[in-house]
């Protein structure tokens, strides 16, 4: 890609990433949640991958590291959801509604689910893009 696309992608990357993290963390208070947040976070990385397609970006991240992160997040999400009927009552009794630290299991599940969705889309599209070269 030419220099315009590279500059725009490099400039917009942190803003898109911060917006995705905001969607994940505030998912239990405002519209959003794990799935849209994961897609937005994945969009930031995919923009970088497409803009810097010719160069080597393996020193920044590889898809195998993303797969490891995804495995850890997946197991944590499964444990949280299976133990949800115990954790939910404990957490809800301790928290104040409409605060940031509220929502019981949903806050933790949003963050873990956004990690899983983001890594899934990054790994899939990165593999397909890098497959031809």
């Amino acid at each position, binding site marked *: 890609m030419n220099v315009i696309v590279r500059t725009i992608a490099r400039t917009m990357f942190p803003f898109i990433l911060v917006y995705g993290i905001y969607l994940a963390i505030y998912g239990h208070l405002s519209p959003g949640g794990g799935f849209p947040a994961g897609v937005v976070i994945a969009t930031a990385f995919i923009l970088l991958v497409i803009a810097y397609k010719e160069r080597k970006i393996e020193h920044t991240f590889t898809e195998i590291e993303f797969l490891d992160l995804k495995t850890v997040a997946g197991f944590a999400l499964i444990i949280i959801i299976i133990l949800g009927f115990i954790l939910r009552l404990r957490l*809800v009794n301790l928290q104040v509604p409409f605060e940031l630290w509220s929502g019981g299991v949903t806050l933790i599940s949003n963050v873990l689910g956004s990690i899983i969705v983001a890594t*899934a889309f990054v790994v*899939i599209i990165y593999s397909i893009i890098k497959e031809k070269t």
Partner: protein
Amino acid sequence: MNKAVGFFAVALFAVFVGISIFLIPGYGSYPNPNVPNYYLNNALVDTGSANVVNSIVWDYRGYDTMGEETVLIVATIGVVLLVGRRVS
């Protein structure tokens, strides 16, 4: 022969689809409103989440969401096995 059987099957399917379209309840007139009313009234007390959609997706129906994440993980593993590079 085959063409006639196929045409008959498609026509039968179309008739049933056309009947079932007119049997769908209208928007907002769900015949058994116990479950949506329970979610709307008790979501904040039960889960502590102000977003009712999020509390349904991640808390009430957490096992469903866990299955969706499993589908994503399996799809990723399949794509990496098919077209992934070998990283040493």
